[in-house]
């Protein structure tokens, strides 16, 4: 049978039309049968989105489709003129963008935007289109399907917008749907619902789909065929199961290994027992602190933890759970409202001004985004020279010697010292960022999402580096991430934050198998596994059981509104107590034995 989509010898260039143009995609061929799902995977910059967009005859500004052929059914897409393409886009081929929040027009109601493709392509009248939209909202499991269309984008969450964008794409019943990293911006717990909704909606329409992602486990759930890309070229192509189970290309194997980082061995010498950092009953947040000792915007509630010398504590939680706030408190950027932060047996003053230079030196903070943390105009030398001068008074030859040592530590060639930061790759910048912290010779490094902005392969290399440094230098880390896989790979102990409370804290081993706290359970269960069929096996979560109204003013469990294990009369009335689980972790929950 003739394939539904056929791409041959695709070439996309950036820059001018002459020799100065650089090729960003070259020699890409693939076919998709009608109703099939092809995944494009690869790290950032591999040309995934560029290829996906050419299926609509579209190239981002500055880029140009320079050669090849693209056939959809009987249509030669590259042979269409602008009006012909406009008639195709949004009607026969629809696009679901990576960031729905940015891709909706902020000043128009959702319904107007969702029905627009059907109206401009003359598929149906407004009434029919709106009825169809509502039925799609229902199919995508959106709340209040009859009225959600009246809202504006800013009134909806990221996960909801992502599903609404799917409704917008499906309204004309397109024959080809392009999904461009549609769940990358979402927390895992939201991602699983969205994936399920997408899969169902696309399948029920019998559409052909192209799924762009860097996450292999997600791809395993969605695709029949996989195309592995690197630097704009195809590295491997084949049936999904084959590519995932027995990859033939080295690059694919690297991607697979990076996707699920193996646990890094703990240092041979067990960490000392005396805590290096100890936090007791910490409350912190933003804004003015009132006379009861609570900040205007409370974030962290009653946090206690300890990190031994040379040990690593992982902090995990969804966006807004207070992970970065915790790091800022330890670093002295935010004053705690109450509670104690002790470092090496001494009480740490709350603010930066009262801390001694030595206290500064011993605790270093590394941020998620090396791009904003490093001044692009400065050279590596200047960036590393400052802490060396400030903390250790090193100048001249001594400074150069130490700098060479540092670059060696982070596995970068010494010749990089003179280069400006703007010329470094993302991974190199993150290494320099790390070296700047190491320059102080700290005892504790606070790593806030240090690998999140990097793609999987580069991120995995940074994790390896962190583990090595720990072995060599006896460093302790507080490692913050929203990805439980990353945290499990490098940490001895893990703390799960939800809404600013530590709902579970315990050794890494305790997170390998249940029982868990109900939120940890949701978190662990939502991480896709690297095999087809996982998504189907995950029965849709039951709705939380009905309970009576929450007692006003009580300090209740933060997870109550979403918890499927909540107990009427207990969870909505009383503050949850701490329990010790047999697996070794402490949870904050009314269930004495955590449920699963």
């Amino acid at each position, binding site marked *: 049978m003739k394939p539904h989509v056929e791409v041959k010898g695709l070439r996309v260039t950036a820059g001018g039309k002459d020799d100065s143009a650089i090729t960003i995609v070259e020699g890409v061929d693939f076919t998709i049968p009608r109703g099939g799902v092809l995944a494009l995977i690869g790290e950032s910059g591999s040309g995934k989105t560029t290829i996906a967009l050419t299926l*609509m005859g579209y190239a981002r500004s500055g880029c140009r489709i320079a050669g090849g052929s693209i056939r959809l059914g009987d249509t030669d897409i590259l042979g269409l003129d602008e009006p012909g393409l406009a008639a195709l886009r949004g009607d026969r081929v629809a696009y679901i963008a990576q*960031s729905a929040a940015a*891709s909706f027009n902020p000043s*128009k109601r959702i319904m107007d935007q969702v029905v*627009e493709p059907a109206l*401009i*392509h003359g598929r149906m009248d407004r009434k029919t289109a709106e009825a169809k939209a509502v039925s799609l909202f229902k199919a995508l499991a959106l709340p209040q399907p009859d009225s959600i269309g009246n809202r504006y984008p800013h009134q*909806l*969450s990221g996960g909801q917008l992502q599903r609404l964008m799917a409704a917008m794409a499906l309204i004309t019943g397109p024959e080809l749907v392009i999904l461009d990293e549609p769940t990358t911006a979402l927390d895992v717990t939201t991602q699983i619902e969205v994936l399920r909704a997408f899969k169902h909606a696309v399948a029920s329409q019998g559409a052909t789909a192209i799924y762009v992602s860097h996450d292999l486990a997600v791809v395993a759930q969605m695709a029949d065929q996989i195309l592995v890309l690197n630097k704009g070229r195809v590295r491997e192509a084949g049936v999904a199961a084959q590519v995932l189970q027995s990859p033939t290309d080295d690059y694919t194997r690297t991607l697979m290994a990076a996707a699920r980082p193996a646990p890094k061995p703990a240092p041979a010498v067990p960490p000392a027992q005396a805590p290096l950092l100890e936090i007791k009953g910490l409350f912190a947040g933003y804004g003015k602190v009132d006379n009861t000792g609570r900040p205007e915007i409370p974030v962290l509630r009653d946090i206690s933890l300890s990190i031994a010398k040379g040990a690593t504590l992982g902090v995990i939680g969804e966006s807004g759970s207070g992970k970065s706030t915790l790091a800022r408190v330890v670093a002295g950027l935010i004053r705690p409202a109450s509670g104690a932060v002790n470092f090496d047996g001494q009480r740490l003053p709350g603010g930066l001004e009262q801390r001694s230079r030595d206290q500064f030196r011993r605790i270093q903070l590394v941020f998620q985004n090396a791009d904003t943390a490093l001044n692009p105009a400065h050279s590596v030398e200047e960036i590393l020279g400052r802490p060396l001068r400030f903390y250790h008074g090193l100048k001249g030859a001594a400074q150069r010697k130490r700098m060479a040592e540092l670059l060696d530590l982070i596995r970068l060639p010494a010749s990089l010292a003179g280069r400006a930061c703007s010329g470094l790759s993302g991974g190199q910048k993150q290494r320099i960022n790390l070296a700047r912290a190491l320059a102080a010779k700290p005892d504790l490094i606070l790593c806030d999402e240090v690998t999140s902005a990097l793609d999987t392969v580069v991120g995995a290399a940074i994790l390896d580096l962190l583990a090595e440094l720990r072995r060599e230098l006896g460093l302790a880390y507080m490692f913050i991430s929203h990805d439980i896989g990353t945290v499990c790979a490098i940490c001895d102990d893990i703390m799960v934050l939800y809404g600013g409370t530590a709902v579970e804290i315990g050794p890494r081993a305790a997170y390998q198998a249940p029982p868990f706290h109900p939120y940890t359970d949701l978190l662990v269960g939502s991480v896709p596994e690297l095999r087809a069929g996982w998504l189907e096996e995950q029965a849709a979560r039951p709705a939380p059981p009905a309970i009576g109204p929450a007692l006003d003013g009580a300090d209740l469990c933060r997870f109550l509104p979403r918890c499927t294990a909540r107990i009427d009369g207990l969870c909505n009335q009383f503050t949850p107590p701490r329990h010790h689980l047999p697996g070794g972790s402490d949870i904050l929950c009314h269930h004495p034995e955590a449920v699963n």
Partner: protein
Amino acid sequence: MAAPPTSRESGNAFLLILLAKRVASGLLTLFLVSLVVFIISGLLPGDAAQEMLGQSATPEAVAALRQQMGLDQPAAVRFLRWLAGLLGGDPGFSLVANMPVADIIASRLPNSLILAALSTLVAVPLALTIGITSAMRQGGRLDRALNTTTLAMVALPEFLIATIAVLIFAVELRWLPSIALVPAQGGFLDLLRALAMPILSLSIIVVAQMARMTRAAIIAQLGLPYVEMARLKGVSPARLVLVHVLPNAIAPIVNAMALSLSYLLGGAVIVETIFNYPGLASLMVNAVTSRDMPLLQACAMIFCCAYLSLVLIADTVAILANPRLRNR
């Protein structure tokens, strides 16, 4: 979920509060301006009583007149009296013209309003069209041509524009009168004919500024992801700009318009002078040269009032166009 049922009402209340705040700050500004105008006009050399009686008057005569005019009162009292008069619609008496200021203004204000209104009618649609077209053809030949033209128009001094207009239309072609007198009777067409050249000159000046701001505001939006999304939905270029982009660019556009349009009333001095048009701006200039303080103060207050109203309107439009503010 995000929008509880009461959000509409609380949103409206929020909107009213927001607008009330803007109005209140407008009124406060107006009060401060009146204070400044009063103080500055008091600082100008000379004294109205002295001025009237001439240098040879006896000090006693001057003093008597000052008392009669209330000039011997403390400044605060004079200020409050003046302010109360303004609010009551009586901005005082012009000793220079020997008639109430209100009467002088009544004879000039309508002329200025007509000229400003007609120029607005011409300039706003023209500016929008030019701005939108060149934004849509960004980088193209038409865009570059329009860009150069508007840049030249911004740079050209207005007396030059007005003079050239007179030379071409009145002297060479003899189509239009070189002096713009509002005809006492006659229809709207006569009025248009009489005012064509002032309107033309004023429009050229403000169109250029407004068109450039419109273009910039639209181009700023064109790079955003929602625009790419609209293109990928198959939206036509015209619909893209008019339906998708314009509502998001409206705030900076109306703001630029408010600034430009306030110029039509107060900044028209040169145009009024060249065409000998009896408007408010030239009146104010006369008031300065003849030291007619009550008239000067009244004119200043009218211009300031017009400016603040325009800004207020622009703010209101911007607030209403933003669903984040409209719909909390």
